[in-house]
């Protein structure tokens, strides 16, 4: 197995320990040192081929291209480049969630900042303005009226990245001071936490406090459906409790779980669930490759 990561944090150390406990041979591949001539031997520092690769790269760009390189060599990747592409773009995610019938907040998009204020007005204030790409709650703004919208959009228009000029808006759901993180690994719902925050952003990266959240069908149904809609894998599904039930906010492809693990203690082992899914992906991919060889004969 390969574990792709440029930063070894709490999560990666837990994953290494879980692999070692299961007696699984693995190599840590630092994506910053990953370079190869296309079509020239196995991916991963020119080393041996891998049964599967677990992508834990913190940089979205490096994660996407690392998965593409390993997939090109026939290595099963978790997550796949397709899943990473979708989860790295909130609009792509929203379109697939809607197509799958997953409950989501009302969402609008405008393809230029000057159209953003009208789109926000049609959606109805207050709204949340989010960058299409990005994580940890960065550059996310709660906008309560047209004046605020125009001000924030003026700043957004001044950003150099063209993608930042695409306006993605969601209704600001009146949540009870918390959101919900559900971790899914393949078809298994590993567990859920409430994330409490004094502010309106409830990202763990912003210091939100995690506490165990009971798994109920009204939570696991949308979480599983959301994970399936974006292509499946090891995913962190973020939901908010709306007046009519849970709504899926977004799906994260390189899930961080320190707060989640601390909240659950010994009741849940996220790293081991991730490793179990990786082994499953490797065996399914091996069986599929065997079947393909059989057909070729």
């Amino acid at each position, binding site marked *: 197995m390969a574990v792709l*990561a*440029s*930063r*070894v*944090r709490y999560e*990666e*150390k837990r994953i*290494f320990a879980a692999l070692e406990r299961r007696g699984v041979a693995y190599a*840590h591949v*630092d994506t910053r040192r990953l370079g190869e001539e296309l079509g020239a031997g196995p991916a991963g520092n020119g080393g041996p081929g891998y049964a599967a690769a677990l992508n834990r790269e*913190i*940089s*979205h*760009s490096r994660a996407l291209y690392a998965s593409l390189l390993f997939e090109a060599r026939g290595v099963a990747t978790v997550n796949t480049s397709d899943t990473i592409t979708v989860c790295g773009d909130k609009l792509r995610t929203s379109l697939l969630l809607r197509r799958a019938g997953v409950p989501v907040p009302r969402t609008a998009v405008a393809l230029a900042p000057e159209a953003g204020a009208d789109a926000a007005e049609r959606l109805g204030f207050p709204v949340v303005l989010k960058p299409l*790409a*990005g*994580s*940890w709650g*960065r550059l996310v703004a709660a906008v309560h009226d047209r004046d605020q919208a125009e001000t924030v959009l003026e700043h957004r228009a001044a950003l150099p*990245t063209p993608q930042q000029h695409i306006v993605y808006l969601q209704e600001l759901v009146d949540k009870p001071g918390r959101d919900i993180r559900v971790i899914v690994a393949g078809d298994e719902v590993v567990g859920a936490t409430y994330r409490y925050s004094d502010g309106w952003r409830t990202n763990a*990266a912003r210091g939100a406090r995690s506490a165990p959240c009971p798994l109920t069908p009204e939570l696991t149904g949308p979480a599983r459906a959301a994970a399936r809609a974006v292509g499946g894998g090891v995913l*962190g599904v973020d939901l908010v409790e709306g007046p009519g039930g849970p709504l899926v906010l977004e799906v*994260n*492809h*390189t*899930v*961080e779980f320190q707060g989640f693990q601390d909240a659950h203690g010994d009741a849940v082992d996220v790293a081991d669930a991730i490793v179990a899914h990786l082994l499953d992906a490797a065996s399914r991919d091996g069986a599929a490759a065997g079947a393909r060889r059989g057909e070729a004969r």
Partner: protein
Amino acid sequence: MTLACPECEGPVRLAEPVRMSEIAQCADCSSELEVVGLDPVTLELAPEIEEDWGE
């Protein structure tokens, strides 16, 4: 094991086994540090957060 922070020389404690690319934080100066060598264990300032980092 305990090493000196390359920024302020304060003590940085690392739980064993120490891993390449592991991230640690100096309790004295709050610098984020990266393990860049294992024999001997060597620390450098970790890279700054980039725009596309996250979950």
